[in-house]
């Protein structure tokens, strides 16, 4: 046998071996492919999630609206659940050039404060308006954490309808939590500061003597939604963190978490963490109302802005108010009570029955659950442990229902499912823990990615939650999505909580930094009488142009007012001459469209301003101060029709003192005027 023959023989043998094995290999291969492919249905779910539960087919609507705080973006975002689709970003406390918010003349007053125009803030929490402890779909309230303010967003228009500034405050964090019928939205100061009518020019280390806390109770008109500061509670100087109203049996009470009872004014990280226990402050606001009626309130001189949007004139207005009524809770003894709560409590959450108050000491290794009934007994029998700056301190055990032992590390916030379970977020151990309120036993836990802050269950702060989903809003993103350099979007995870075990079904990035969020069944919001257009017949804007025949350009001294209309796809007028250097030009643009989803935009070259985005039937104004002589194009920024690119015009700017007459037109060429007069 030659070596060649040997090779051939060997090949034949190999061939036979392979062909013999093929069916086996095939079967094993199919098995190997199938096993991992099928796995996510079973064991793999825990780590991989079950995305099909979050799938909403194209053209189909979500089950829930999710109103998410935008944190340092200053805005509120609206997501659909369970898809995680971003539906809209509603500008609230920060300017938004995309929508002209804070740039158009009409919206500028909305961002006015006692400090003047403030273009940014830090929106931490959202609160939906309620009736009888259930979401009513009318408004969402939001807080400004930097320059203390409260906003009301109207869910008929998804626009910010009102912003009220809060005097005597330094950082409105403990807000905008509301009572069961939105009688009040509260606003507790995070930083205690000397009151506005006191001298603030004092050494910082006189905190204990000069710094005071103030909590505003802002009343809400049930019809119009209009907010007013009904009264403020003047409290010892501490940091107020979060709050929840009593509900059902505890309606009439409000609970605020506070930290820094050490009254430190530097390195709070260490110095405000000395005491074993800080407080939850229980407030009997019905009692406060009685004192107010009895004239026990003190009128205090302050200065704050109250900004309101008028739907008829499509304009905001700002009023500076100068007085607020203050009740001093160290003098009026039976409004406030302190309940000791371990280690710098953050979340302070009341269950749907109103009986249980859950304190989350962010540095504690347990969760105390207080009983409203026991608190009432403790107050009745004066089971006190002395006073703190004139306020009774209830004995810890006298108000305590029980403690959840070793639930996790760094408890922050708790939401409820209405089925006897509580869900608490744990920042340090990065997980959501489900526990039973009655027996205080941990039932389930799931990881979050990473370091969860707030949680949201639709209606999770009401008498009747819709416990289908839970969303975890995380503080750290790291490797969760494709990297985008040093700065990453924040992450949120959606869990299905309809079964015994929590199951992650979606992971989605969010705008700004989401803190608290609320959600409501979609039907409640989409059937609330939402507007699709503004009726042009009802437009009461002082510069409205109801039809091209009314369009005009009017000079008043150095102000030039352009009454302009827009419709698919032209402006009227679209040729303007006779504007001179030194003029201030106001384009008042009325969108004549009366069909849903047909906005027109407006921009002019060189404007030190943003665009306008004008909804059907609305009038909006852009101020433009031309900086040079020449020809300035203007155009529609929102693609409106096949001839959108034709929706444009020119403004001729002549030198100061030029004799070019003021003229305007659309569709006709004006007789030739002098070409240039600047010689």
């Amino acid at each position, binding site marked *: 046998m030659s070596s060649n023959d040997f090779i051939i023989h060997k090949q034949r043998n190999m061939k036979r071996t392979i062909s013999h094995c093929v*069916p*086996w290999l*095939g*079967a*094993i291969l*199919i*098995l190997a492919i*199938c*096993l991992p*492919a*099928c796995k996510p249905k079973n064991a793999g779910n825990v780590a991989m999630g079950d995305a*099909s539960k979050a*799938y909403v*087919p*194209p*053209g*189909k609507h979500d089950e829930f609206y999710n109103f998410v705080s935008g944190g340092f973006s200053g805005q509120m975002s609206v997501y659909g659940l369970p898809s995680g689709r971003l539906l809209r970003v509603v500008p609230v406390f920060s300017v938004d050039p995309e929508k002209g918010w804070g740039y158009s003349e009409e919206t500028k007053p909305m961002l006015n404060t006692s400090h003047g125009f403030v273009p940014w803030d830090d929106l931490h929490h959202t609160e939906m308006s309620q009736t009888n402890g259930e979401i009513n779909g009318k408004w969402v309230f939001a807080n400004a954490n930097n320059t203390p303010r409260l906003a009301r967003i109207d869910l008929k228009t998804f626009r910010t309808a009102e912003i009220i500034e809060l005097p005597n405050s330094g950082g409105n964090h403990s807000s905008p939590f509301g009572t069961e019928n939105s009688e009040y939205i509260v606003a507790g100061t995070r930083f205690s500061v000397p009151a506005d009518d006191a001298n603030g020019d004092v050494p910082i280390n006189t905190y204990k003597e000069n710094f005071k806390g103030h909590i505003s109770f802002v009343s809400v008109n049930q019809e119009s939604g209009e907010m007013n500061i009904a009264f403020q509670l003047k409290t010892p100087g501490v940091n107020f963190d979060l709050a929840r109203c009593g509900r059902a049996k505890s309606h009439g009470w409000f609970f605020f978490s506070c930290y820094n009872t050490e009254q430190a004014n530097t390195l709070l990280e260490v110095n405000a963490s000395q005491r074993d226990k800080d407080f939850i402050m229980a407030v009997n606001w019905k009692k406060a109302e009685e004192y107010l009626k009895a004239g026990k309130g003190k009128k205090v001189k302050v200065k704050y802005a109250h900004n309101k949007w008028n739907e008829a004139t499509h304009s905001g207005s700002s009023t500076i108010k100068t007085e607020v009524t203050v009740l001093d809770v160290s003098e009026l003894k039976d409004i406030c009570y302190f309940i000791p709560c371990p280690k710098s409590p953050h979340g302070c959450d009341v269950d749907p029955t109103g009986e249980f108050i859950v304190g989350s000491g962010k540095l504690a290794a347990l969760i105390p659950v207080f009983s409203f009934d026991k608190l009432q007994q403790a107050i009745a029998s004066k089971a006190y442990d002395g006073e703190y700056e004139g306020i009774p301190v209830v004995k810890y055990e006298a108000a305590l229902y029980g403690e959840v032992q070793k639930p996790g590390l760094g408890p922050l916030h708790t939401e409820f499912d209405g089925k006897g379970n509580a869900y608490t977020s744990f920042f340090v151990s990065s997980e959501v823990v489900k526990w039973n309120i009655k027996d205080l036993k941990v039932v389930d836990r799931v990881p979050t990615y990473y370091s969860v802050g707030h949680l949201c269950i639709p209606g999770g702060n009401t008498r009747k939650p819709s416990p289908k989903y839970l969303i975890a809003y995380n503080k750290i993103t790291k490797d969760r999505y494709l990297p985008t350099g040093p700065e990453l979007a924040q992450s949120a995870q959606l869990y299905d909580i309809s079964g015994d075990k929590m199951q992650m079904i979606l992971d989605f990035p969010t705008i700004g930094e989401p803190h608290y969020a609320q959600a409501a069944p979609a039907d409640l919001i989409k059937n609330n009488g939402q507007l699709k*257009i503004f*009726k*042009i*017949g009802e437009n009461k804007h002082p510069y409205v142009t*109801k*039809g*091209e*025949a*009314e369009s005009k350009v009017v000079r008043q001294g150095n102000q030039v007012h352009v009454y302009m*209309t827009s*419709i*698919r*796809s*032209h402006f*009227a007028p679209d040729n303007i001459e006779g504007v001179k250097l030194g003029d201030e030009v106001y384009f008042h643009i009325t969108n*004549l*469209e*009366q*069909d849903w989803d*047909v906005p027109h935009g407006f921009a002019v070259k060189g404007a030190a301003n943003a665009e306008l985005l004008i909804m059907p039937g609305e009038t909006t104004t852009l101020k433009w101060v031309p900086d040079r002589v020449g020809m300035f194009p203007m155009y529609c920024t929102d693609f409106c*029709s*096949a*001839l959108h690119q034709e929706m444009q015009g020119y403004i001729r700017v002549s030198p100061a003192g030029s004799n070019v007459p003021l003229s305007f037109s659309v*569709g006709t060429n004006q007789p030739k005027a002098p070409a240039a007069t600047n010689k």
Partner: protein
Amino acid sequence: MKQPIFTVLTAVALTMLMACGGQEPASSEGQTKNAPKSMVADASSYDPKRGEGKYNAGNTAFGALDAGLAGKGEAIAGTKCFSCHKTTDERLVGPGWKGVTARRQPYWILNFITNPDPMIDKDPEVQAQLELCLVRMPNQNLSDDEARQIFEFMRKNDGTK
């Protein structure tokens, strides 16, 4: 001797394949069902003489001109229509109004101005018009009264006494 094991394995593998594949159809079926109506406009039942909407020969028998109505119609048209339509026969964005009440039945006009989108999708002549104008006539959300008033102005514009 090895054969039975092979058969079992293959069967297991096949079952698993089917099980895995079985998740798909439900969602894709859902998608087809939900195709937006406007995209699948059914022109077969469309009557180009009548148009589509709440108006027909039975509810649009109008007598002598009502000058009061026509006056109101002209005012509303000033806000909602004249940006794109002239009262002469000259085309601006859309066709001029002169003679429209002679060219069209009253109910066709009333249907079109109150319910433009379905008619733009279905009416052969409107579609031909769209090829010229390139802008879909906007739905200006006219109330029944406003539509009637505008129609009366169109009649006046065409010389109805």
